């Protein structure tokens, strides 16, 4: 879903740019896409209910994977 909305992630050059930036920051591009998906889920909502829980889940999972 993230790639459908964020064209940058879909094009070859754009994805390369994102990958390089993620690598430089020590972050996983897959996690970025998860965050984008969570944000996309909130489109059209006045209050982004549940977004914080989604972020919690994503970051906790990320940390758990790093610990493994």
């Amino acid at each position, binding site marked *: *879903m993230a790639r459908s909305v964020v*064209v940058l992630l879909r094009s070859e050059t754009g994805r390369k740019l994102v990958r390089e930036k993620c690598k430089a920051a020590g972050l996983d591009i897959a996690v970025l896409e998860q965050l984008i998906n969570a944000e996309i889920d*909130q*489109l*059209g*909502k006045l209050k982004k209910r549940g977004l914080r829980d989604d972020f919690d889940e994503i*970051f906790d999972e990320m940390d758990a994977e790093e610990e493994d």
Partner: protein
Amino acid sequence: MHLRSVELINWRSYRHARFQFPRPHGRKNVILVMAPNEFGKTSFFEAITLGLFGRDGLSLVPRARAAAGHDAIDRLKASYSQFLSNTLHWQATASGPAECVVNIEMEDEDNEPIELKRTWHFRQDGTHKAGDDQLVIYEGITRTPVAPPANVEDRDGWYRDWIAQRFIHSSLAEFFLFDGEQVQRYASRGMSGQVRRGIEGLLGLPILHSLRDSLARYAQNRRTSAAAPSDSTVKSVEADIARIEEEIEKNQRVLDELDAVIPQLEAEVDDLTQRLGSKGEGTVALVSSLMEDEQRHLNEASRAVDALTNLIAGDVALGLAGVQLRKAALDRLEAEAKREGWEAGRNEGNQNLERFTSELSDRIGQLDLPLGVDDREAILDAARAAYASLWHPPPEGYAEDYLHTALMGAMRAQAIARLEAVDRHSGAEIAGHAERFNTAVATAESRKRERLDLEHTAPEIEEQTERLKERSEQLGKFKTQHEGARRIIDARESDLANRRAELGRHVSRIGASAPALRRARRADQFAALIGDLLKDAVPSEVSEVAAEMTKAWKSMAHMSDRIDRIEITPDCEVRMLTAEGLDVHPIDKSAGASQVFTQALITAITKVSGRNFPFVVDTPLARLSRTQRIGVLKTFTDRPGQVVLLSTDQEVVDEKLDAIRDRISAAFELKVTIDKGISVTTVHCLDWEQM
């Protein structure tokens, strides 16, 4: 891809309407929908937008957006559900809960139909029933339902993804579906802001902007919720613990040292006590006591000797005189004592006799008696004789004379007492004195021997006693110190337990807050990453956008004589260059020129995107000059894809209509009728060639 039909049921003023659009062919790609204001053009635009994108399309709907300032991020003034609650046709709920439907049929480049049917349900009061929305998609001539696989949990997400891939993503949609107000909003941002926003929309970056804001708020929230104790608080408690531990350790060392010393001292004291005990506790005192006792007995012996000596010197001789002699002497003395007493009485009486006879003589003389001098003398003599007779006879046993004239009065009484006392003495009394002497001397001797015996060990005992005293004092002192140290340790251990518990609570809170803080840090990291991406992603598209903008600008603005090309820097600064390279920027600040610039940008973005998606424009020509309107209309319609142009009945007329006439494939007119006081929009095909 083009729209084949749009069917509206209970959508705002549309009770039931259907737009049927011909497939674009050749240059004929324009659908013209004309109507005066308030006749349903915008409602139609909203139906297409929300019908295609659902909730994601809300930001594209002018009536759902709050007024935004210059360069401000668009904000919604109503939720999706709130907005929808106003879309239901007023007559729809006349007979109970109702629904409204937008059914959009499209056809892709392969002439395959795609049908999206969205149904929104409403309560009888017209409020939208969130959560009951339905989306049904059919694909192909066979109308095959499009649905997520069974294992997909996020069905909405899946449909959103499908629509974005099959049509366009919502960020790009604002360049294909827009109204005149949206153009004005864009124009108000300034050229650089517009270009950046356009390119970001092209790349789908607005969602990254939104995500970055969400992450920043999320990080702040998580930090706030963590509310962990500060480092200084924890350090303060840790310092307290260290201080208490040090104090306990110090006192424990004292305790350990005393624990090592005290038993030795106790053993020594016990030993000394035992040793001294075996020799008689307080030997020195005992020696002294013995000495005193010895002396006391010697004194007693001395007193016994004195008593015996006195006895021998005094009474023994009288005793030896014998009882008879002592009795005779005692009788004689007592007889003499009687005599002395008698004589004393008689003499005293004689001393008063003359005063008596004189008194008597006077008293007789006062008597009226015939007495002569002789008589009176005789009476007086008789009285004297009578008086004298009081002393006669002398007491019995009185001495005729005095044998012991030296012993008169008290002396005689003492001699009598002495002689009587001698009778009370006995041999036993002397023997008693002798015994007393002997006993005292013997006891004194015994004490002396005992003392002498003790005096042999007295110096050692004294030394031991002194040591015992010293050790006992030391032991007492150490025990006091021991108790003090123990008390301090007990008290400090209690403090320590409290402080450790406090630290534990802090650590626990820090531990509990750690995940929140870690999440906040993660959010910060991704927010920073997104900021970096937003900065670097835009420049990749600037040159292509600039080239397309140049074409659009030249086509729309009729300023080709001045502007040769538009250049966009990586920072999205816009330069409007003449053929000589002169930057004529800023462009004419008239509202029309700004809108032309914006529409050139919109055109450029849609072209650079390469997406063949219907271009739906609602009333785009406000504030434009006649020439600009013609230019904009020509430019907008000069594209291979379908263009749905919603226009007032005054906008696309005359020469403007003529400018695009050859592109019109169908035209519709919206009319409004009143049904029971409620407006109802109806759709009518126009014979555009006759217009």
